[in-house]
């Protein structure tokens, strides 16, 4: 169990560093065992340093920087133990346009092996989707879905779903 954890930890660590550098266009980050000599019990520390800034504790990072750091971590776990399916609910909400773009690049890369379902209010994210589902509540309290196929043409073929 000790070897398995150590191996998984190192793979997540490697992917986390790589994801962080993609999302922050530079900078550096790391995952560390708080107690090196107790790998089976030790909590895991996150260090994150956006480029050009000093290394500080995570609490001082901005809302958008925290979101990117958490995404870098979770996606490192997804990559290490590939999940066929990944559901994201408005995680792009705190990101500015430039960061949404980098976040979407990471998703497009992972989407080669993982199916993504993304709830979003963001236009850039919608543009990256090959299929869009619009949820409406024309009748108050009752949800209904309309699907839009984006591959043919933008907002063509509004077909009520189910």
């Amino acid at each position: 169990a000790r070897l398995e954890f150590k191996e998984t930890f190192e793979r997540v660590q490697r992917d986390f560093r790589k994801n962080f550098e993609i999302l922050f266009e530079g900078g550096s980050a790391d995952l560390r065992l708080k107690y090196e000599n107790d790998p089976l019990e030790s909590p895991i520390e996150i260090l994150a340093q956006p480029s050009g800034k000093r290394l500080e504790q995570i609490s001082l990072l901005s809302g958008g920087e925290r979101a990117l750091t958490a995404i870098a971590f979770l996606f490192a776990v997804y990559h290490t133990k590939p999940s066929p399916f990944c559901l994201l609910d408005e995680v792009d909400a705190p990101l500015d346009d430039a960061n949404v773009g980098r976040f979407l690049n990471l998703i497009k890369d992972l989407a080669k092996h993982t199916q993504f379902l993304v709830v979003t209010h963001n236009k850039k994210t919608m543009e990256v989707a090959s299929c869009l589902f619009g949820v409406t509540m024309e009748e108050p309290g009752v949800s209904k879905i309309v699907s839009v196929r984006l591959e043919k043409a933008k907002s063509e073929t509004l077909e009520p779903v189910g």
Partner: protein
Amino acid sequence: MYVSRIEITGFKSFVDRTVIELQPGISAIVGPNGCGKTNICDAIRWVLGEENVRLLRGTRIEDIIFNGSEKRKPTGMAEVSLTLSDVQDTLPLECNEVTITRRVFRSGDSQFYINKVPSRLKDIVNLLLGTGLGRRAYSIMEREMIDWILDDANGQRRRIIEEAA
């Protein structure tokens, strides 16, 4: 393997039977505040085996059954089905597709089906265990998860990595 179909009936605001057909790649769910987007996420979480009603934003199991609107009466049952396609390489099944269905009644009685065969929650959990799709596989991320991961108040980063190991 990918999720090819989600069917929701009587679950929260989806009183009418709703079918979502998915392809591999990236799909987006959009719409105004309160229209039901996160309810779809709750439905997926629930059909994959979530037992903690608080993670579905409720306090009792009845909170996930459509409880009526101006014109509609409450329903007696909620049902969600999720179909996985191209499963042959990953799951020990003969067919290339598997549908998981979960149903709950106001009494609290819960029913599970795998390809329409009555099953137990643990059968579904076992089926999903190898796929990374289990409810604890953290492949569902919402805004609250950002603080949850970074504040790490209960060693959750460790648990996430242990789960992946």
